[in-house]
């Protein structure tokens, strides 16, 4: 860890300004991702602005949906009665992530902005374009984990976004509300928050420097059942090999791309009456196939079909 300075922001706007004005500054929320990466010398901020205690930690009812504070911790969000009632897919996604201890610290905003779990990103002795732009991508010809992207990858990076929560939020059509350095606020869909790697895998989102996520807005739940299914080697405390969120007619895949992946082709197929398997295939036929990922593509297809099927038996109260 490099030496850094720390401040606790008194309010959102000063936090935004503090980060916008200092190119070495970063927001700190629960710290469960950022601090780990700092200890490993992967993240090297010179200044931390703590936004974990800003008063954005509640849930409000807005137009039949919910507004979730950016600083709300994952465990509280998953236990919130209205969230449990309206968005079981979100609850399932949240509790399938990380461990109880981590969820007690991890925040809504921090979870969205957590960085990839690509093993080469974590090992600072290896080339990695995301960690050190231009150094190369070790994963491309590396030990092919089940964690490689099957959608939207580039020659520069094949890493996936590891959040579970973001997959459910994508399926629910949620958006983030931010505060920009000018003091203006804007919203953008969760599915548009993250970028594909392209030539700049180090740039992960469309947020401007210093732009703070203040809330996540979830629209009223769609008609139909909600399901979250995650595949992983052990029964808990493991990142997914793949996941699928279904909320009514909306479907998103996790751990398949540099961002939570909205399966728009699957949704279209469903709305035109396709079977779950056909609908899954509609999206997966568009996957980037290579020598290593056929099995993962098959897995996601089976999982998506099963999750869609299961959603038909689930109804939100």
């Amino acid at each position, binding site marked *: 860890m490099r030496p850094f300075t720390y401040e606790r922001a008194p309010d959102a706007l000063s936090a935004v300004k503090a980060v916008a004005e200092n190119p070495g500054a970063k927001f700190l929320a629960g710290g469960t991702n950022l601090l780990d990466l700092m*200890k490993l*010398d992967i993240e090297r901020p010179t200044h931390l602005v703590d936004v974990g205690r800003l008063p954005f930690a509640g849930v409000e009812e807005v137009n039949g949906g919910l507004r979730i504070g950016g600083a709300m911790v994952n465990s509280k969000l998953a236990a919130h009665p209205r969230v449990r009632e309206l968005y079981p897919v979100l609850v399932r996604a949240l509790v399938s992530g990380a461990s109880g201890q981590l969820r007690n610290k991890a925040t809504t905003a921090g979870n969205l902005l957590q960085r990839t779990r690509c093993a080469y990103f974590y090992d600072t*002795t290896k080339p990695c374009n995301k960690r050190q732009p231009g150094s190369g991508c070790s994963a491309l010809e590396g*030990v092919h984990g089940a964690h490689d992207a099957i959608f939207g990858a580039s020659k520069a990076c094949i890493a996936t976004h590891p959040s579970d929560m973001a997959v459910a939020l994508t399926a629910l059509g949620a958006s983030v509300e931010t505060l920009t350095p000018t003091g203006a606020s804007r919203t953008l869909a969760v599915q548009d928050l993250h970028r594909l790697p392209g030539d700049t895998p180090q740039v992960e989102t469309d947020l401007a420097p210093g732009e703070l996520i203040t809330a996540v807005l979830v629209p009223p739940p769609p008609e139909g059942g909600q399901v979250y299914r995650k595949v992983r080697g052990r029964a808990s405390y493991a990142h997914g090999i793949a996941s699928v969120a279904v909320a009514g007619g909306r479907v998103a895949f996790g751990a398949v791309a540099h961002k939570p992946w909205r399966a728009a082709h699957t949704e279209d197929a469903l709305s035109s009456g396709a079977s779950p398997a056909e609908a899954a295939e509609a999206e997966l036929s568009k996957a980037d196939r290579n020598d290593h990922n056929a*099995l993962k593509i098959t897995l996601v297809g089976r*999982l998506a079909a099963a999750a869609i099927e299961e959603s038909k038996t689930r109804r939100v109260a």
Partner: protein
Amino acid sequence: MSSVKDWAAPNPITENRGGLIGKGVDRYEGRLKVTGSAPYAYEVEAPSRPAIGYMATASIAKGRITRIDTSAAEASPGVLLVWSHLNAPAQAPRGTRANPRSQRPSNPALASDRIENFGQTVAFVVADTFENARAAANLIEIEYAAEQGVVDFVASFDQADQPPGEEDVHIGDFPAAFAAAPVTVDETYESPVQNHVQMEPCATTAWWDGDKVTVHTSIQMVKGGQHALAETLAIPSDHVHLLTRYIGGGFGGKGQAYDDLILSALAARALGQPVKLAYTRQQMFHGTIHRPAVSMRVRLGAQPDGRLTAFAVEAITHCARNAIFTEHAANFSRNLYAAPNRLTGHRLVKMDLPGAGPMRAPGEAPGMLSLECAMDELAEKLGLDPIELRIRNEPDVDPETGKPFSVRQLVQCMRDGAARFGWERRNPKPGQVRDGRWLVGMGMAAAIRGNFLLPAKAGVRIDADGTITLRQGMTDIGTGTYTILAQITAETMGVPMEQVKVEMGDSNFPPAPGSGGQFGAATAGSAAYEAGMNLRKALTELAVGDPNSPLYGGPAEYVTFENGNIAIENRSETLAALVARAAPEGVYVEGSISPAADARDYSQHTYGAHFAEVGVDTVTGEVRMRKMFGVFAAGRILNAKTARSQITGGMIWGVGTALTESNVVDARYGSFINQDMAGYLVPAHADIVDLDAIFLDEADDKANPMGIKGVGELGICGAGAAVANAIYNATGVRLRDYPMTPEKVLEGMLAVGL
């Protein structure tokens, strides 16, 4: 030297009048541990505030350091010292012993510019804080001339050689018998590199007092650590006081001294202040040993009735080029099933990877993953129940040596286990049982693990207040050693547990070999028992010779020790009263144990049977445990609770072995892909549902005076194979490549049309 017959005499442990032997007594040091007040090596209080070390490690697998620039690190805040091979203090050359009796040779750190494995320590920083030390270490610039190393195990089988000094074991004519056998299995099973991932990484706190060093370190072998440090620093071993009181898991990975021990001691000397140093979690993966990958070919030839006529288990494994170690994955099979024609042996590839070494049940743990699945495969071919197949091949005497068994209850374990587990529920035809989206299956496997007794000593003293203190240079790596030593001592002396103290993990105490190879309880415990018996003798003499004792003049052979009293029939006094009056300075005696001269005449093992029920997700190939049960026979059980915890811990590890645990070498870099516990997956609580184990009644009078045996490793032996067999029974997918991850299971399911 004693004979095993001498051991058979009744004694306080076998009589167990106080009922302490076998009782599920709580852990002796449990309260300290759960309240966080047991100081581990990194947390002990040093005489003054320690400086903190941090190691920089190599980013290549093989080659040479061509340039190292530590100037930025030296100028970094708080830095007290920066060493590389250029300026590290002189140490004895690796592998040398100034004292031929040293148990471990010199093991210098930063000894040269050569890199022998990825993650090797290449520089060392000491600073006022951990953060400053680490920040400085990150500023060190190193250039290497890399060389191509041998890092790809599977691609290097052509370099596999007979391990030094070993030969294959041939009995009868295996090739002919195998060729003639009407039913055969010939399959190869792969088990991967595994890491110990102990909760507590290796760590040391060191300080000097003149020319003597005190080190608190996390190591399984007290003398080994003391001697390695003394040899490396070229100082007499009695100038090293090594303490290792609490150890957060060892599993074989802490059987040797690592750089934390050497560098903290060197730096504490150089700086004239205490220094502490711990490996980071990431550094543990390459900086310490691992279990090597093993490729095992099993060939079985059987008659239609199931009797084995041809039996071969051959293992190829690997070790570091300069640290020869053989994972003896075939050894266990030499004692398990009868078959007249046999072939077993090992081949070893020397590689440029970190050191391979012992990990819980070295040999059996990977080895049984092969044979115990092959037996399942053979049973299916023969149309026999897997238990029945094993029973039909149950030997009367050790199948390789012809020696009688001391006790062998393998068949009983399987029968009892089958009844309690509900084995009759198993449908022998695979892929038949569904529960919602799950395919459900059951599997079983046998367990065997050798039993050992090594030479050891123990000292015991009684003070005027009656407190009895057992002292031994033994370790408790979380297994329960403190507790069983307290039980043995209390039962031997006929006092309540509260009257006994146990002190261990100190090189000044009478030596014991430490924790490993499940020899700990038998070895350390027997020495403690002998010490206790000697104390009984000393106190008896004291009492009958003391005119002020009610026992005065009484016949020594009628003296009993019960309820804190020493007595001859109705004449008694408390031990405290006796000692306070007759030996107010206390009484100290020692005892020792060594294997009985004729112990080698018996084939001595611990046995068990594992039963597993799994569910396999038909969509994803995820395997989830539904139930696991084991029955074990391991001599007299000293503590029902800690023994069960050892055994179930081993079984849980078996689940990890079967389903998740593995490390993979990226051959381009010669490094492991998993370097933390988010990537290296050990079972979490949610993976372990209904899991339990019981022990059969047993006492092995050929093992040691108390008839006990080790239980530390037995639980893992065969456990993973039972899970693998259950996966097959659930799905009809026979995987032979551990661990059985969702990807592999799904691939197998796709291949059979699921």
